[in-house]
């Protein structure tokens, strides 16, 4: 069964450093998403991406965040200057344009900012 692949599974970074979280969506999917889950809390939408541009973003997705699909297969989330409160699990997901079956989520990247 096709999978969404996220790397790394765990990243530790110093406060103020830039991090890039990587995702490989399912190959025939056209919509891509990032969500985050602070430990013990609910899953929050960050951004959706379609046709090489952001289609929707939340209030959380401020100027510190950016997304990119650099090569037609990878989908990345960059956090420019990490803060302690960015520590969370980050999930990538993808969906077909006409799928009625929800998304396929990746297994997540646990980001720890120290």
């Amino acid at each position, binding site marked *: 069964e096709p999978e969404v692949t996220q790397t790394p599974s765990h990243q530790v970074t110093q406060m103020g450093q830039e991090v890039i979280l990587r995702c490989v969506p399912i190959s025939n999917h056209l919509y891509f998403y990032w969500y985050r889950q602070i430990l013990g809390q*609910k899953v929050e939408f960050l951004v959706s991406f379609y046709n090489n541009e952001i289609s929707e973003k939340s209030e959380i997705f401020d100027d510190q965040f950016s997304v990119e699909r650099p090569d037609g297969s990878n989908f990345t989330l960059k956090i420019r200057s990490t803060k302690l409160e960015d520590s969370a699990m980050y999930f990538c997901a993808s*969906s077909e344009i006409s799928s009625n079956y929800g998304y396929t989520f990746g297994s997540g990247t646990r980001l720890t900012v120290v």
Partner: protein
Amino acid sequence: AQTVTQSQPEMSVQEAETVTLSCTYDTSESDYYLFWYKQPPSRQMILVIRQEAYKQQNATENRFSVNFQKAAKSFSLKISDSQLGDAAMYFCAYRRKKAGGTSYGKLTFGQGTILTVHP
């Protein structure tokens, strides 16, 4: 804005018994999708079951079924014959149906319910 509420932070069930997880939501839309996702300790989000709002019939997937009450904006998940592997965090989620019936768009999640299954 749409909101999703899960009022049960934790639930427990004996193996082989039945448990029901509650979810309510608020929306002004008439057509949308509702989902239950399972998050085991591995933290992966796994789709359990989905319901389209315009369908009257409650969705069923093996031991999992929903009770969808559109007027009450309620969407509960029933797990029958509970198994140890059902132990996980369960999230209820909502997604608006976009124009033309396409189903892309953000998911709005509830706070989650931790389900413990006792042997």
